[in-house]
Structures are given as C-alpha cells and as structure tokens.
C-alpha cells in the first residue's frame, strides 16, 4: 500500500502541531444516537402529517376534525378503561410486529404474521387439549410453547425456501397466510370443532385452568408483559451480541456477510424462527387470555397491523413497544368514533393506512437530517 509519495505527506514532527479544527458538535458525532433520534423524528413527523391528512379527510366528510382528534385521544388513552382497551389491543400487535421486524434485520421482508398467529392459536388449543389433565401453569406453558413452535416452523419455512430455493420471502409468506387461514378454517369447522357452539365455528375450548389472567388491579392480561419482555430481550440480543451483529451485517450487505464467513442460512432461519415464534405466541396468548378457544375472532388482521408497527418502529424491537401502544390506541378508539360521530368502523383503518404511507414516504428524508447514512 505504501508508496514513495507517503514520505512527502508525512507531517513534520519537529513543528508544534497546528490547532486541530474545532469539531462542530453535531448529532453526526454520535452516529448510533443520531440515527435513533433521526428515525424517531421521521416517524413522529410522519404521524403528524398523517393526522393532518386524516383531519382533512374527516372534515371533507362533514365532521369536526378537532373533535375527532379529541375522540381519538379519549378513546385510546383518555380514561383508565380506554388505556386498558388499548393495552389489550397492543399486546398481540407487539408480538406480530416482531414477525416483520426481526427478519427485517437480516434483510427479509416477511409479511406472514397473520398466518403464524392463527396457526399458533390453533396449536395452543390442540396442545392444551392434549394435556388437559395437567395442572394449570404447566398446561398453559405447554399450550404457549405449542403456539411458539408452530409459528416458528411456519415462518422458518419461509426463510428456508428463501435460502435454499431462492423463493421470494414476501410472496411466499403472503401465500402462506392464506394457506394457514384455510387450514385453520378447515380444522375449526370440522375435525376440532366444538359442535355445542352453534353461533359460529369454534374449536374445542381450552381448560379454564390454563387461562392467562389479568394483572392485579388491571383488566389487562399478562400477555402484555410477555410481549414487552420479549421486545426488551430481543433489543439487547440484537444490539449487543455477536449473533445480533452478524444479523445486522447480513441485513446490510449480503456479500460482506459471505466474505466474513457468516453462517447465512442459519442466521436467516434463526431470524425467521424468532419472528414466527413471536407471532405464534401472540395467537396462543389471544386464545388463552381472551377467547378461550380458536375461532374466526382470531383473524382480525393483527398480523397486518404488526407490519405497520414494524415499519413505524423502523424494525427496532424497543421502538415496537410504544408504537404498538399508539397503534393499539388508534384501533381501540374506533368504537368511540363510531358511537359519537356515527363514523364507520373502518375509520381507524384509514388513519392507519395514512400513517403507513406517510412513514414510507418519510424514508426519502432519511439520512438528510442528521447527516448519517440510511440504516434500512
């Protein structure tokens, strides 16, 4: 590397060093934090723009936008009751968001959270039935593990197909959602159906002893704590361990990962297993804590909302928590909007869609604010 001209450029050590140019104290000096601050600013800005557009939208429909904003706040966060509703909504969304966020770290855009959630819920019912005689906590644990395993396997298939056959992961996970829902509907309307429930097709009921209860003093089930803990653990693991670092390398530059000799296949599948396991867990918790059985009420789009949350959180497990609470709040306020203004229940879907579009558009400004390079 050294060339003769290097000698010429070498500083003359006999002279006192010239005063170093004063470094401007900027966010760019702290790249990791700058990126985080910038992401947060972009996401908040996108939400603000989306709310503004939403205000225009409802004003066009003849409603007072300020009153609608207030109702959004009151319905999501205004009272203790609404906060409980919000957190109950947020609990599965936190987990399904991980199904997109974790594979995104290795560069996969997986949208199969809905399928993994649905099958996870079904697996929880089957496992609970298999060990119906077990004591409560053990039975619940078995049911939850069953959900995790099925969800993990379901999304692992996506990663495996990508790695060994080059099948596009977005499309395969999308197709698997439909296949999962078909399997789910097939089983709950026949082989595992509880025929005493005539109103709608419902699976066998989980033994009540296995149910997940509420936290003391709150009508929010423990599933929320599970989701939040998983996010915290994943944040630490992805950020401070070798595995997490390897995943980031792979996600950032596949060639670099290859050259560094990283086990690409294993990393891809591990990320899918974690994500799918989280979504499967979401389904199992919904069954054990909310519904008590697997039925259509499990297919309400938590998986798709999770994709929105993952993008809004910019694939960061820590940011998933507040974002899921925010989005859960928007969903939870739908009822109030419906009652107070007679708005359709799809109103909150419109707002969520607007937020999603604005967040993606805000990516165009990434790296321009703090002067750091784009992370995703």
């Amino acid at each position: 590397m050294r060339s003769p001209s290097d000698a010429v450029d070498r500083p003359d050590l006999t002279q006192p060093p010239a005063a170093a140019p004063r470094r401007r104290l900027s966010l760019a000096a702290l790249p990791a934090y700058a990126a985080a601050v910038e992401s947060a600013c972009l996401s908040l800005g996108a939400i603000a723009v989306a709310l503004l557009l939403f205000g225009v939208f409802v004003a066009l429909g003849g409603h007072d936008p300020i009153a609608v904003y207030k109702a959004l706040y009151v319905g999501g966060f205004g009272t203790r009751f609404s906060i409980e509703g919000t957190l109950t909504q947020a609990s599965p969304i936190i987990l399904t968001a991980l199904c997109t966020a974790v594979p995104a770290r290795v560069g996969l855009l997986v949208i199969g959270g809905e399928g993994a959630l649905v099958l996870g819920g079904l697996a929880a019912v089957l496992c609970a039935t298999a060990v119906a005689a077990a004591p409560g906590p053990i039975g619940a644990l078995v049911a939850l593990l069953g959900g995790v395993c099925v969800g993990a396997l379901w999304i692992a298939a996506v990663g495996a197909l990508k790695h060994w056959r080059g099948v596009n992961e977005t499309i395969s996970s999308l197709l698997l959602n439909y296949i999962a829902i078909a399997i789910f509907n097939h089983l709950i309307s026949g082989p595992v159906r509880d025929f005493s429930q005539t109103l709608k097709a419902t699976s066998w009921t989980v033994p009540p002893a296995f149910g997940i209860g509420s936290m003391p003093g709150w009508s929010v089930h423990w599933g929320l704590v599970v989701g939040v803990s998983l996010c915290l653990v994943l944040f630490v693991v992805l950020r401070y361990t070798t595995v997490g670092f390897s995943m980031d390398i792979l996600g950032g530059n596949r060639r670099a990962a290859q050259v560094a000799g990283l086990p690409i296949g294993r990393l891809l599948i591990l990320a899918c297993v974690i994500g799918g396991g989280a979504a499967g867990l979401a389904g199992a918790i919904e069954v054990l804590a909310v519904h008590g059985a697997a039925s259509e009420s499990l297919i309400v789009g938590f998986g798709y909302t999770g994709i929105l949350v993952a993008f809004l959180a910019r694939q960061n497990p820590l940011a998933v928590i507040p974002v899921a609470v925010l989005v859960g709040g928007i969903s939870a306020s739908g009822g109030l909007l419906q009652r107070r203004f007679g708005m359709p229940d799809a109103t909150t879907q419109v707002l969520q869609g607007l937020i999603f579009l604005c967040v993606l558009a805000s990516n165009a400004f990434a790296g321009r604010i703090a002067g750091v390079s784009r992370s995703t």
Partner: protein
Amino acid sequence: MTDAHGIGWLGIVLAIVGGALRVSTPYLYVSLGEVLTEKSGRVNLGLEGVLLMGAMSGFAAGSLTGSPWLGVLAAGVAGGLLGLLHAAICNLPHVNDIAVGIALFLFGMGLAFYLGKPFIAPRAAMLPALPFGFWSSEPAVRAALEISPLFLIGIVLAIVLRWALANTRWGLLLRMAGESADAARALGYSVNTIRTLATMCGGFLGGIGGAFLSLYYPGNWNEALSSGQGLMAIALVIFARWNPLRCLYASLLFGGASALGPALQTVGITAGYYLWSAAPYVLTLALLIYSSSTRHTLAGAPSELSISR
C-alpha cells in the same frame, strides 16, 4: 351419489367451467394490471386495496347514476388514482415499493370500507350477461355459459397487451424501464414517468376487476366481497411469467381452482371445503418453489424488479 342432482358428475365439470369463467375475470384484470406495472420495473402489492376501492366506487357510481358502465369507469378511475398514489410515493428516493404496496393494501381497504358504508344496503344496476349457452336446453349448461362482457373485453385486452408490449414504441419503452432503467435514462426518458403511467394503468385495470365483483358476480357490495383476488395478482403474474396472454390461461386455471370447492359442494361433497379454497395458493407456492432458484432470477422477470433481485 352420481345421479343425486340431475346430471351428476357432469354437473361438477360444468360448475367448475362456469365457476372458472365467472371467477377468473377479476383475476384476469388484476393480473393484466400487475403485468403492466411490473414490466415497468415496479411491484404493486396493493392491488387488493385497488380492487376493493374499484368494487366500492363501481358499485357506488352504478347505484347513483343507474348505469353499470359508468360504474366500471368510476372503478377504473379510482384504481388509477390509487396507482398514482403508489407511484408518487415510490418515485421518492429510498422507498421500498413492496412496502408501499402493503400500505396501499391497508389504506385502500380502509378507504373502501369507510366510503362504502352507505352503499351496503342498496342494489345497483348490474352489468348484463351474454347467454352463450343458448343452444342448450339444460339449465346447468346455460347457467355455466353466461359470460360477462367484461370477460370478453379482458380477453381482447390480454391479446392487445401482448401485441403492444412486443410491437409498439410504448411497449418497448415500458420494457426498457423494466429491464434497464439506466438505458432508458441514457436515451432521455424519465423512468419515474414511465413507471407512474404504468402503475396508473395497472391500477385502472385492477379497479375494473373490482367493478366486476360488485357489479356482476357476486354483484353486491359488502366488506367480505373480495377473497384476496388482488393479493393473488402478484402470484398470477409469476405464474404467467410476465406474459399477458399467459395471464389469461393462469386466470382461468385459478378461477377453476377457486371453483373446485363450491362445485364439489353442489354434489354434496362438503369435506375439505376450506382446503379446496386454498388450492390456488398452494398451486402458486408449489410453482414458485419449483421454478425459483438461488442462482438465477425467475424466467421472464424484468430485471429491475425488486422481487427478482
């Protein structure tokens, strides 16, 4: 079992053929729309939202004006506008078109359900059906061969698109934007403009596919109208290897596969109804697994496409 319902097993075949002819039309339109978009180098995963908006606008315009054909036009325009939204966001730097598609899916669905709420009750004027089964006295044959004019237009469109992509200046430009954006830029064309127009045309066709659902079959507007036909567009296009003419065959095949479950139900076979309904998805996944490779991109895929890289 065979003679329980008059014409027996022939009834199943007829039900599948009739179902394929009916169900395949939305598939045909969304896949033709998606081919146009993808040939220009972008993926629009949001055609499900476009389809639903098209279905809602078509039904609304149809019931307000009394003319189903104005409904079809309104559906196309609504779809084209959503396509424009997709393209406008994708034209920004650093934006992932697949993610925008997912967002468009959620947004279009929410918007359609929001705006379509007042129209759930009334009925609109339906599109007419052409009785191609007039020669038969068998009602099942007549029912199976009732064909929507939209289907015939779709067939013509597939042939025209196939020809235009291969033989016209516009087709060449579109393919150039999809195969090599640099080449298009070097010749002084704006890749973003080409892709915007392609996505808008794709949205227009997707919207018409939705109008078929709300104005012909099943012929009403409700929130459970679509069963994912729009999402299937992307799979259909891979199945058809980016060829509009093959989109026609693929749509018929998928329509037939979707009609399997209901057809078997007509002769009393209800077991596995839901599993049969997953047949198109399993078919596509199997084909994807078979034709994908880690070494080369899918045959026929435009090379600028994010899913083929």
